[in-house]
């Protein structure tokens, strides 16, 4: 483990009865990075975050936050948190919610500034209980930011948000990263991770499957996708070397192949009227599916 890590789990085990939630799991969060923690339901993401937040303790191994135990209040003064399932007091107004959480920090942002930053200023005087679910997420985002955190934990931050609000969240996160803040993001929206993450950690069944940049993740999946309009039939292409799957799709023939160059060369040779040719690398979604499939 690097000693400049903002937060880290080192060889942690965590069981709930007979269920192994984390199995010799290690993870580090580096300064100024956005780490996307991905995994199917039940992979252990929430347990890992709970350990880093000091909400539970590992059966074995250690958790550190700014080099301190996560239960330490000094360590927690450096973080901002947005949990997926936290219902704030419905009677308090938006301004009051943010003001309350600001009081927990040594040097918080002015409440009005946070409301402007997160697009929640027009909601300032409204009771939290009267907001839509998307607006509530925006307020929770404001609460996560108000303490000028050096490390931000975001659990599904854009669930229920409209496109405009999601853009505000994404833009704010990019600005925070540029200012040196570290972010741990758990999300089921792979395009969100693809758009924002410096590094991705894929988990399954309590284990870390792989970690790396989005490009490194994509490179792990050798498949590429070819689409084209051609008179060559599915049966014909299915017998070619390097072809993994082939089908007729909305945009013509859809082929996945391990060596696209060879397949494209053969397609062009076999049909000189072929058009609409596109070759795409595997996205994070394909990489995620392939990486987690082996463990399921």
């Amino acid at each position, binding site marked *: 483990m690097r000693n400049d890590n903002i937060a880290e789990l080192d060889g942690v085990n965590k069981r709930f009865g007979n269920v192994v939630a984390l199995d010799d799991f290690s993870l580090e969060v580096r300064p100024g990075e956005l780490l996307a923690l991905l995994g199917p339901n039940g992979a252990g993401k929430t347990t890992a975050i709970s350990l880093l937040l000091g909400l539970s303790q590992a059966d074995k191994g250690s958790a550190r936050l700014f080099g301190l135990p996560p239960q330490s209040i000094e360590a*927690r*003064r450096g973080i901002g948190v947005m949990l997926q399932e936290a219902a704030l007091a419905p*009677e308090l107004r938006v301004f009051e919610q943010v003001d309350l959480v600001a009081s927990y920090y040594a040097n918080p942002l002015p409440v009005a500034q946070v409301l402007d930053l997160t697009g929640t200023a027009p909601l300032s005087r409204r*009771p939290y209980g009267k907001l839509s679910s998307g607006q509530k997420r925006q307020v929770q985002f404001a609460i996560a930011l108000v303490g000028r955190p050096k490390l931000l934990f975001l659990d599904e931050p854009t669930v229920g948000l409209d496109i405009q609000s999601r853009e505000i969240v994404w833009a704010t996160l990019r600005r925070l990263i540029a200012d040196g803040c570290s972010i741990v993001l758990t999300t089921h929206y792979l395009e969100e991770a693809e758009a924002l993450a410096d590094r991705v950690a894929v988990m399954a069944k309590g284990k870390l499957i792989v970690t790396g940049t989005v490009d490194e993740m994509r490179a792990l999946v050798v498949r590429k996708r070819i689409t084209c309009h051609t008179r060559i039939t599915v049966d014909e292409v299915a017998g070619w070397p390097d072809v993994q799957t082939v089908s007729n799709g909305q945009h013509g023939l859809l082929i996945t192949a391990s060596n696209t160059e060879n397949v494209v060369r053969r397609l062009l040779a076999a049909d000189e009227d072929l058009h609409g040719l596109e070759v795409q690398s595997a996205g994070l979604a394909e990489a995620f599916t392939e990486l987690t499939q082996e463990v399921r």
Partner: protein
Amino acid sequence: MDTAITTMTSGRLWRAYGVEAKYESVRMLRTPAFAGPFLVLPAALYLLFGALLFGSAIEKDPKAAWFMFLGFSIMGVMGPGMFGFGITVATEREHGLLQLKRALPMPPGASLLAKMLMSMLFVAIIMASMAAVAPLGHLRVPAGSMLAFSLVGILGSTPFCALGFLIGTFASAKSAPAFVNLLYLPMIYLSGILFPMPKSAEWIARLSPAYHLDRIALAVLGAPGNDGVFVHIVVLAAVTVVCTVLAVRRLARHG
């Protein structure tokens, strides 16, 4: 590693406790289903029974006048703590707010203290309303005694806060009101504070913190028929400590 973690000045730390208490009180005052019954009922019921229905009878019986005044006052002391803690702790626990606050750098015990201060604020308002209507129930209490009685009521709300806190740590948000009522109603009817208990059943009344608070209040007001307060203070302190310890342990284990 250089964590660059900033420390809180003691001024900001105290402010955090203050802000937590302020917003806890604000939210409960904005909850009509909570604030309405607890703030209005004790004085309203006292006026109904002590002035309108039985006013002429208790005018000739000072002991009955004291009994009725103390009974409705103690009832007022019990409610905010038991229901305020019981229902809000259960709801916040179930809806993840307690967990969020544990993850955030909320100062230790701030939520607990805020709820206690909220209950005390409610009790102070109830005591003021009872003091205001006392003359209508044919009671003449010197201002000093009434102030001392109010302080006893405010401090005496702590064991009821602790009972509510304990209920809130195991009850669900939906079942918490039922669990609190399961304790609150027998405490009112079987503690002898509103209905005299026969001598043979006084042991049942002694099981209730309400009985012991009633005894302390009697002594402070100098009402006839009071005895020593030490045992009663010990009982209330024991209820507070035991319930709080059990509740804190349960929260630490089960969240």
